[in-house]
């Protein structure tokens, strides 16, 4: 059966690795929808992926800032119209600006919550309201959402909320047979990690493709044996 995957934050890191992994695999997924902000990274990544995917696999790319919730709703409705059903959703787009408590800017805190928490919620809600039913939803959280970290107040708070929101989604959407929940990676070599830990050598930590592999496992039939809790993925 042909299935469609939608990944946000798909221009690089975990989002791009996830889109690539599903697009290249010989599984059920034959349409991959990639959401990301307009950037050279995104244009290049999409062009390269389109060149290398097997025949019969479709890549649909949309430039959208998930922090713009109205634009996100519009993009979601348009893509749903185009593909018919989003079976798998990976809410991956993330934002952080780590600063001490004394220097947290209200507007920046709100942007963190919009991108990391409200955007995944808005995407799920608007697709449900448009009649979509999901097989699987994976919300990328963080181990920083399990334990707060000094200097990361807005990021840790947003990811803690993602973990709890994902539990609610898992419970409430079970009536549709939807599986999934939160996936909390530890240190992963992404651009976001570089903001959080600029001095760290990325080659010494977990790579985005490792997280993508776990997402692929979650989507497989055996995924239902491991999806009952927030999943921690770390070295």
């Amino acid at each position, binding site marked *: 059966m042909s299935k469609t995957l939608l990944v946000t934050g798909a221009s690089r890191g975990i989002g791009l690795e996830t889109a690539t992994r599903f697009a290249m695999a010989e599984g059920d997924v034959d349409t991959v929808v990639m959401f990301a902000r307009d950037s050279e990274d995104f244009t290049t990544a999409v062009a390269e992926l389109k060149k290398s995917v097997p025949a019969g696999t479709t890549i649909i790319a949309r430039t959208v800032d998930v922090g713009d919730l109205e634009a996100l709703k519009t993009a979601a409705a348009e893509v749903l119209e185009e593909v018919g059903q989003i079976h798998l959703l990976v809410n991956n787009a993330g934002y952080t600006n780590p600063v001490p408590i004394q220097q947290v800017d209200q507007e920046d805190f709100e942007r963190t919550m919009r991108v990391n928490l409200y955007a995944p919620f808005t995407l799920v809600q608007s697709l*449900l*309201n*448009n*009649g*979509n039913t999901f097989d699987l939803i994976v919300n990328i959280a963080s181990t920083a959402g399990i334990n707060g970290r000094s200097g990361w107040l807005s990021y840790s708070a947003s990811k803690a909320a993602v973990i709890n929101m994902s539990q*609610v989604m*898992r*419970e*409430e959407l*079970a*009536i*549709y047979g939807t599986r999934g929940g939160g996936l909390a990676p530890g240190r992963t070599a992404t651009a976001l990690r570089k903001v959080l830990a600029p001095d760290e050598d990325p080659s010494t930590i977990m790579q985005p493709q490792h997280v993508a592999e776990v997402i692929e496992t979650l989507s497989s039939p055996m995924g239902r044996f491991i999806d*009952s809790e927030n999943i921690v993925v770390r070295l």
Partner: protein
Amino acid sequence: MYSLILLNGGVGTRIGANQPKQLLKLRGIPIIVYSLITADKIKDITQIVLNYPEGWRDEIEQVLKAYAISTPVTLVEAGTSRHTSVAKMISACENDDVIIHETARPLVAQEDFERLIASEFPNVALMTQIPFTVAPVAPGTSMITGSLNRARLRNVQLPQKFSKADLQSSHEKAAAQDLEYTEDATLVVDNGHEVHYIDGSDMNLKVTTPTDVRMAAFLLRPEEEIDE
């Protein structure tokens, strides 16, 4: 193809709520939603006729919109009793065969509808055996008046399916005699039509009392909680 008469008109006096019990939440989801989502998955159901208690149409429409129920829904205001509601709703049914269900049975399974539809007979009710003893009594004198053979009795469940013509003529005859029934399988039998039964599931319980609400919520827990 079938029209589903989905009874939703009760006001929940036994549950003790200040709103229709179908809008009460079970594990955070309005009770009405469980039956709607299950029925929405059945391809042979091409129309849902849903009644609503007077004054609650907006709330019901909001639920239908939010949950994006794809089967066309025809809304009918509830009658003064369950019996009169069914009578009103039959005329709104567009198909020659109808299924009757009630939103107060949120644990109905897709399979319950499918087994009913698969039956070769036009008039079929889901029923369960009675695993305990019931006795006839005279409430006025507190006397037991005899005995009943429970092997020849069944607990009447929903969903049930009927030929629309049989159901409609039975209701017309009952109205002519000023009779009201509490369910339709016995009404249709009493009016001269054959009604078969197939075994239902004890999971498909009717949520009537506060204890039922707690039991239904318990049965709807995820599997991992049941393990613990």
